[in-house]
């Protein structure tokens, strides 16, 4: 154990921090400005100008197929939306997809994260299977699942048949098509949720579970009383971005059904894409985008309030 070594009395002045690093000890405010600057600059460069252009365009009557020059149209584009049934249908579809897939992905993601957090001896297959769905490019995920749900060559119907059920012609019915899309989205995005939640799970100290165990809390109780509250920040982050991306749902329905049958599975983002890229009606497309942005902002605001009440 302790031996009696005495520290030598060397009274050399210690190396002081070099003078040139003084600026690193800025006041909080100056430091904050400095730290936020790169993010701010990037966002300004890549987003602010384009967005201003977008908002400006939304007030123009600018359809490249009309052959007419752009002219200021005030709120005309926004007014048009009101009696555009496709706008309402796609918006409704978008909201429905959001309402179904966000909680769905959250639950599946949470479950996957909890499973993946079990003490496996070899970790990598678990991590890998958690990440693969996320690493599959979105557009191809749509194609692959369209194929899975194919009524003849799809593996889903194959499994159904093997289990003794009749195969379903998924894309012949709006409801089944919608279901197939939602399932695909949930599968694809749950790994994003799981990833964020898993990272959150790993920062919860084990000693808290020990304390709860001694306190008599069972697994379920521990989950609700410790895991979930401590995961809240991670979950909110995941939810915010999942919701925003859900509102922007595009690739998967685009690839799986192209919005069909009819327009029954088309989303707002698809409609925007159609108007801007396909119909070249930039004015109207921009107005739609602005509406979608407003929608996302509302949702974000709600979530942010959730974060704030935490403090």
């Amino acid at each position: 154990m302790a031996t009696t070594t005495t520290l030598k009395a060397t009274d050399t002045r210690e190396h002081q921090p070099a003078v040139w690093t003084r600026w690193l000890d800025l006041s909080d405010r100056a430091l904050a400005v400095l730290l936020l600057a790169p993010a701010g600059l990037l966002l300004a460069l890549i987003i602010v100008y384009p967005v201003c252009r977008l908002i400006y365009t939304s007030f123009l009557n600018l359809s490249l197929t009309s052959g007419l020059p752009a002219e200021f149209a005030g709120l005309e584009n926004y007014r048009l939306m009101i009696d555009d049934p496709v706008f309402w249908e796609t918006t409704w579809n978008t909201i429905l997809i959001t309402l179904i897939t966000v909680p769905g992905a959250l639950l599946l993601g949470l479950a996957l994260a909890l499973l993946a957090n079990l003490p496996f001896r070899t970790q990598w297959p678990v991590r890998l299977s958690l990440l693969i769905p996320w690493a599959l490019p979105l557009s191809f995920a749509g194609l692959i699942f369209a194929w899975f749900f194919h009524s003849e060559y799809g593996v889903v119907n194959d499994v159904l048949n093997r289990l003794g059920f009749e195969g379903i012609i998924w894309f012949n019915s709006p409801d089944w098509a919608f279901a197939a899309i939602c399932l695909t989205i949930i599968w694809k995005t749950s790994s994003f949720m799981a990833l964020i939640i898993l990272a959150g799970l790993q920062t919860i100290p084990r000693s808290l579970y020990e304390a709860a165990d001694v306190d008599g809390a069972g697994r379920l109780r521990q989950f609700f009383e410790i895991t979930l509250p401590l995961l809240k920040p991670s979950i909110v982050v995941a939810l915010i971005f999942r919701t925003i991306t859900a509102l922007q749902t595009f690739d998967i329905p685009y690839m799986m059904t192209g919005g069909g049958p009819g327009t029954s599975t088309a989303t707002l983002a698809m409609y925007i894409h159609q108007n801007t890229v396909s119909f070249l009606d930039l004015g109207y497309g921009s107005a739609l985008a602005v509406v979608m942005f407003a929608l996302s902002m509302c949702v974000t605001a709600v979530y942010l309030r959730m974060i704030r009440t935490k403090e």
Partner: protein
Amino acid sequence: MSTTTVPGSASFLSGKPLRVIAAGILLVNGMFPALWILFTSLKTEAELTAKPITWIPHAPTVQNYVQAFSDQPLHIFLFNSFMVALLSTALTLFVAVLAAYALARLNLTYRGLILSLIIAVSTFPLVTLLVPLFEIMRALNLLNSWTALILPYTVLSLPVCTLMLVSFFEGIPRDLENAAMIDGCTRMGALFKVVVPLCAPGVFTAGILAFVNAWDEFLLALSFNSNPSLRTLPVGIQLYQGEFAFPWPVISAALVAGIVPVAILIVIFQERVVSGLTAGGIKG
């Protein structure tokens, strides 16, 4: 943190059977589609339309891979994707770490507002910003360069990474950072030498998110880099199809070739992220 073996509560309910079931669920959920693509890539087109459908290829062939690599310069696509994703991930993490630290630790007055702004940015669908972005890239003379993709990809992942890191940084006891500052670190030193390593699982996750976001992106890559030698994988894979033809087996082979590097990367990195690091540092 219960990644090491098994004391206390962990040992009783997460016994072997549960772990086996869990592993099964995870593997099927995650791997099935990937495996399906792998199997497809080994099938001939004829087998694809055979009925009833086959799961495991009857006569596996590597022909599709040969074709995938000979029809298009797949290795160039892979290299471009990899570099662009890697660089933009590095940039994203750097910028996000700085911003997240400011938001998590500096008691800013407008914290809520800044957070909202950062999130607001990600609520614009990229499609709608394509043309102005193209103009910016052209003005900066960046068209047909990695940078043209790295910058927007960084912005694409920045909000989610920042927000995530904020919540992680808030979970690190301030005293650890304090100790580092007493030990002679600047705030930034404390951030990079203590806080960031301690948040490794979070930083890793953020990195994966950024990487995959960049790895997957199609639209910008298609629009900004028309030079064939700068094409990324998602754009490249589209080239296997014709106006009408969609050769699934070859495309599957290309997809497999695209997934494998990411998978390897994940496997390598996850070994490095030792979880459970925050144990024992602090009383409380």
